[in-house]
């Protein structure tokens, strides 16, 4: 079963484009939004299990320019 996860990111000033380029290379990323407000980038991932999420999170943490991430696992989703 696929697990959907949101990664809410705080990015260092001037590093958004650089981080964005690296995030676009992640095959499990299904949506990336550059935003204004309390977070700078919101990434949606679709993974098969929590092990896979752990590996991807480690990979994301190694991208230079990301200050902080908050991981939110989706329990239930409704969409039109």
């Amino acid at each position, binding site marked *: 079963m696929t697990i959907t996860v949101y990664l809410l990111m705080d990015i260092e000033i001037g590093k958004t484009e650089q981080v964005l380029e690296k995030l676009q290379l992640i095959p499990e990323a299904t949506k990336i939004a550059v935003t204004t*407000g309390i977070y700078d980038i919101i990434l949606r991932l679709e993974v098969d299990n929590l092990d896979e999420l752990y590996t991807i999170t480690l990979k994301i943490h190694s991208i230079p320019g990301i200050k902080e991430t908050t991981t939110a*696992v989706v329990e239930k989703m*409704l969409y039109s």
Partner: protein
Amino acid sequence: MSSRTERPVSKIAATTMFYVLALGAGVMRTLSVAADYVAIGIHETLYPGLGIDTFVFGFASQWISFATTFTAVAVLSIRRQHAGAKRPLGFSLDPDFGRLRILPRKPMMYIALSGFFAGISTSAYYYLIGSEGADTVLPFGQLVIIYLLIGDLMAEKDTPTIVEIQCIISILFGVLIVGVETEGPGFNLGTLAIVLIPMNLSSAMTTYYQKKVKKLEIEPGLAVDTLNLRLWSLLVLNTVFSITAIPMAAPSAWMTLADIANALWAPMVAGSLATMFSVVMYVRALARGSMAVVNSLSAISVVLGIPVAIISGLLFPPYLWVDWATLQWILKIFGVILVIVGIIALEASDVRTIMIIKVKPETGDLLPQLFAVKGVESVSALAGEHDYLLSVKSRSLAKTRKLIVRKLEEIQGVQTINTLVVLKEYR
């Protein structure tokens, strides 16, 4: 098959992709019209003054289109190694495409309905082009945008704003003015009624079912692909059209069927491929935006039709020669300006926001209430620091504030709402 988890996020921003698909559908439709001009030009050159029965022409054209689409979808099913995974050639046209196949029952039912209505609309179209004064009435076919706008108002969760309606009306009047004929035999109300009722209503229903089928998931993360959708809906369309065409054309006219198919198969195949690409792009755009907006953008084909008509006139004089009066040129220029202004304004007015919500302790499940708010495209219940994440679409920040945030604030249990405006999005 490639579920969403097996595909990387697009390198192109989501809004850009939407406009590329919707406008691309219009460009492809223009190429298909160009192929029709070439077909008529060749026929007139081979058989000067003989005329052509539109139903026989349509019959040959539609079935050649089905054979072409079937072959193209079969070829696009061939798999090859790409970026470490085996994918069909059709993947780049539609990432949901796996291979030529019969789809499950529910999508097949919607496809059949879209094909049925397309069949009625196509029959009405071929009836009109064979009747007197068709050039004057056919531009009114663009009024389908109004039908779709009403459909969007009823079916979509997001109500169109004044800006959106202004842009749609600007494009609509633009295409009507571009298509208008200042000279000609005129038209009667009966002919206009065929355009406004069976033709436009069926077109609107076709679009509605195409959107509905593209929104269906045949397995988690995998939507119905547009290539199989085009192929099977074309089969139903052709069946409905053939049932109408056979009694409509004179028996003697059917004797020319083989000649038409032999002489015109090349432009008909080219036109079929252009239509296939047009439908693929159009339906993919429908999955991303509202019906009226997609139709307005793809109506760019009417504007692009001007150079196509001029070039065809130069290729096949005197049959397709364009001899417009100054007034008509002025009207066409005004029409083009209205279309372009509408498209640019529409593109500039799209606002997407993400809202992160925290709820008070001991609050129950708010998922259905949050999802019921107009403009909310998706709601995710989250584990961790935040409770809900909402994806919201509107046409202005003022509307987001006035209509959406206020509604969310009224929901019992909501403690805080953080609004994040999306500057750029990749899907």
